């Protein structure tokens, strides 16, 4: 009996799978239509959109006849997800409406591995959004990328982007990418209500910052919230601290030498930056939860005590994207605000440290070119700026486009910065910038001897830089 039943089940499953197989065959053709469907996200007026959808497909076919290589869809690989993804899709929507070219976005947070595999296998996406220029250089050096200065309007690009951005996106004299989404990392977040209640003033120099921290401790509070835990990337928030301090104590030139490993890690300038970081992060009275708390708190959770009553801590140094982690219901400008990470040595002023995603191109198709040109223009960047959580490096993007006053201030700081430097750890070889630097920070905060930590990083750097 049970055998027969089992057979029925088995043959049923086989039939189902055959039917499914038959259904699945036409996949390649379907892609085109669905991609357009993706753009419809969050649009309530579906009826009109559906009509447009039909139209778009029509247009796509016409384009295909004109240009033989065209596929009507540009594939884009990137790390964005959640509301970032929907904001990006919305930003591309006018492009699809206008040109009939769809965008198929593939998101993965494990970008490096997936991209390497696909590139090696000869199946790269048309465009990719890389989280830092380091990987761009590797890919450009391997000849996998299409230089974009051959078809982009360089005059407009030079007008809209600061030279520093174009230099960072270039390799061997050719431009390979356009920076799209920036994070300003030189920010200290605080709770204005708590500051007011305790009568604290926003510090404008490092000495005032330390004085304020001491004052908070004397009043029985805890000045700082720091969290270094971030899974396999644990330690990176500490590297941002040290980079920010380096820029303020040694200046941009020494900073660049440090990035290129022209000075050793044991150099006094580097050591001093670490010591100043340690002055805060290793001080049990200064940090919420003590050094154990610093080491074991997830970076995204770490600012939460700032909003407790009474506040668990008063200040949090982190990049602009941290607002995405703030508890729900806190209001920009009221419950939280920021001040620039204050200058330390007066001569170096208040530089801005940042990170940014850049768009690069693998397949030179007419559609990919058009999308690339569109993305470098202010329009899609203004759309995303209006959705929030986005800062553009493009000078042509109107500051009015930003969703709130706070984001506008952050964006202003980025475009008007006298000295802007890219996150050093993102520019260093992965063995250092995403390896020994991170673990070094953890060891140091955990109580290890600074000289030993720096010597260890130096040893790994000598291998990584091939000296």
């Amino acid at each position, binding site marked *: 009996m049970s055998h027969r039943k089992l057979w029925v089940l088995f043959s049923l499953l086989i039939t189902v799978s055959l039917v*499914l197989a038959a259904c699945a065959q036409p996949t390649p053709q379907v892609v085109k239509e669905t991609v357009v469907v993706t753009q419809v996200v969050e649009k309530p007026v579906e009826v009109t959109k559906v009509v447009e959808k039909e139209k778009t497909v029509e247009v796509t076919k016409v384009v295909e006849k004109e240009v033989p290589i065209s596929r009507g869809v540009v594939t884009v690989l990137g790390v964005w*997800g959640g509301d970032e*993804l929907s904001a990006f899709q919305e930003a591309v929507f006018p492009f699809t409406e206008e040109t009939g070219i769809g965008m198929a976005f593939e998101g993965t947070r494990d970008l490096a591995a997936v991209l390497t595999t696909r590139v090696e*296998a*000869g199946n790269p996406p048309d465009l990719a959004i890389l989280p830092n220029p380091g990987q761009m250089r590797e890919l450009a050096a391997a000849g996998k990328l299409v230089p974009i200065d051959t078809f982009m309007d360089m005059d407009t690009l030079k007008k809209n982007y600061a030279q520093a951005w174009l230099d960072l996106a270039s390799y061997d004299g050719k431009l390979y990418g356009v920076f799209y989404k920036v994070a300003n990392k030189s920010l200290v977040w605080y709770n204005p209500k708590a500051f007011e209640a305790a009568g604290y003033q926003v510090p404008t120099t490092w000495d005032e910052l330390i004085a304020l921290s001491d004052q908070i401790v004397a009043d029985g509070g805890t000045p700082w919230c720091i969290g270094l835990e971030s899974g396999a990337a644990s330690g990176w928030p500490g590297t941002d601290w040290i980079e920010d301090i380096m820029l303020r104590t040694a200046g941009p030139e020494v900073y660049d030498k440090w990035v290129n490993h022209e000075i050793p890690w044991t150099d006094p300038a580097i050591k001093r930056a670490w010591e100043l970081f340690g002055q805060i992060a290793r001080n049990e009275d200064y940090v919420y939860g003590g050094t154990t708390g610093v080491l074991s708190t997830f970076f995204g959770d770490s600012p939460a005590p700032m909003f407790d009553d009474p506040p668990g801590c008063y200040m949090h140094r982190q990049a602009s994207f941290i607002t995405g982690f703030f508890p729900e219901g806190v209001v920009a400008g009221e419950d939280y605000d920021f001040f620039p990470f204050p200058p330390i040595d007066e001569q170096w002023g208040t530089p801005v440290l940042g990170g940014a995603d850049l768009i690069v191109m693998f397949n030179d198709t007419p559609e990919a070119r058009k999308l690339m040109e569109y993305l470098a223009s202010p329009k899609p960047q203004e759309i995303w700026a209006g959705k929030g959580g986005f800062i553009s490096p493009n000078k042509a993007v109107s500051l009015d486009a930003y969703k709130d006053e706070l984001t506008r201030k952050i964006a202003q700081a980025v475009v008007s910065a006298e000295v802007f430097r890219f996150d050093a750890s993102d520019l260093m070889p992965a063995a250092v910038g995403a390896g020994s630097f991170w673990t070094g920070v953890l060891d140091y905060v955990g109580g290890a001897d600074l000289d030993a930590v720096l010597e260890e990083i130096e040893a790994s750097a000598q291998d990584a830089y091939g000296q």
Partner: protein
Amino acid sequence: MSPRLSKTLSRFPIHIVLIGMGLLWLTPSVGLLISSIRPPDAVNQTGWWTVLPRLFDTSQYTLRNYQEILGAQGMALAFRNSLLITIPSTIIPIAIAAFAAYAFAWMEFPGRQVLFVIVVGLLVVPLQMTLIPLLRAYNRLGLSGTFVGIWLAHTGYGLPFAVYLLRNFFGSLPRDLFESAYLDGASEFTAFFRLALPLSVPALASLAIFQFLWVWNDLLVALIYLGGTEQVAPLTLKLSSLVNSLGQNWHLLTAAAFISMALPLVVFFSLQRYFVRGILAGSVKG
């Protein structure tokens, strides 16, 4: 009465240990379940165990995470894609492995041991090593981005273990059964379909569970061979794309874990029936 009582008493410590281990194993899942129905702010501030003292106070729970996930665009499509990938990727390797395992166990042919050793040897090849060469071949054959391609990939990855497990199970069936079948004029096919397969239901069922879970939970293989576009992305990819690039909105993943767990649980419990019955049926009847 008294012998039964003493029996119960003597088993008491074992039961305590078993229940203790069961609770220990369940703890992370319970924590995940509670986290998934707590508001994100509460999750950030206190541990899931803090709800335990007032477990029945429903005001501390919310179904918002579930609503947000199920309401996300394209969820139904992702679910369909997952089924499209998983069902054939479970059936094909098991069907092939059953034939192969029977041949390895009961048919005499030259090179049998060598072939079997090679299959077992493939068990230790990490699948990551095959990604680039296989994807290259797929590009040539036009299989990348198609469901057929990923079925074949999962079949290949699943076969060594499936053949190994089934061969050992077939090999442990009593030789007399097959000899008498051959004497009665049964062909190899009859012996396979009438004897080997029905007797191996427990092994087939457990293999199906393994393979189903592995394919259902897979993210990497789908990402590489199918790509992450909406049209073909399975549930795992869709769920991972709900989280922002730096991990904002991670609280959604707690609920996502339970949603993606639902179907495997159904599969497990429905196959478990065969599983247990099969084991009992196998206990020799002379």
